[in-house]
């Protein structure tokens, strides 16, 4: 299968336009990009909004599991190239956290692969967020909605 996956885990920011350019191929008529950002929401058990997120990961396993999931997405959908970048370290409100960019011949495969990649990433890739507000810090709890999102890919064929 002619599929190319680039995966990076880094503290530095990424340039969306540059990553998009790098993904372009003559046989691809569609590129879907998802970017996750730090938002200043008020945690459900708190009163003051998020100031920053601190991300920790398991070096080696993170990259390998992202590549493994990308390969699964490529076996399921007709996609040609994917770039996944996940940032770690301390990230302030409005900073970019994650990029999943997918190129395919037609749009449906790229949309589906991008969504599948994010749903799997949120359940299987060893990355953890610590939430910092003005007055306290706590590790984010895993959300049942993220686990439910996975069901779609396990049942849909």
């Amino acid at each position, binding site marked *: 299968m002619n599929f190319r996956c680039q995966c990076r885990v880094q503290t530095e920011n990424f340039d969306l336009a540059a990553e998009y350019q790098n993904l372009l191929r003559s046989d691809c008529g569609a590129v879907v990009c998802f970017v996750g950002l730090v938002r200043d929401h008020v945690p459900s058990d708190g009163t003051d909004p998020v100031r920053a997120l601190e991300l920790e990961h398991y070096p080696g396993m993170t990259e390998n599991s992202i590549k493994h999931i990308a390969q699964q997405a490529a076996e399921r959908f007709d996609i040609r190239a994917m770039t996944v970048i996940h940032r770690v370290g301390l990230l302030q409100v409005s900073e970019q956290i*994650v990029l999943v960019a997918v190129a395919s011949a037609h749009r449906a495969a790229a949309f589906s692969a991008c969504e599948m990649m*994010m749903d799997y990433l949120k359940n299987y890739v060893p990355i*953890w967020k610590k939430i910092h507000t003005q007055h306290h810090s706590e*590790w984010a709890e895993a959300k049942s909605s993220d686990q439910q999102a996975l069901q779609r890919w396990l049942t849909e064929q």
Partner: protein
Amino acid sequence: MTTQSNAVTKILFFASFRELIGQPAISIHLMKPTTVTDLLEQLYAEHPQVKAQLAEREFLFAVNQQLATSLTLVQPGDELALFPFVTGG
């Protein structure tokens, strides 16, 4: 001691577990292959505070950086990681 070096199995902790336990890793001398469950029993016997710190917490584990189950075999020298449910993305 050099012949023993391969028997050292490193147990890694991440995120809230690393903070609870107060260190990123503990080494255990493992003389023969054992299941994840039995290795955890050995860890708890040698470090009772870890058992208390992880009590009633749900966790995932990985053997040599692959998600594993409680029945997965761990070889002497392998790397076991314990961590809470992931929250990336």
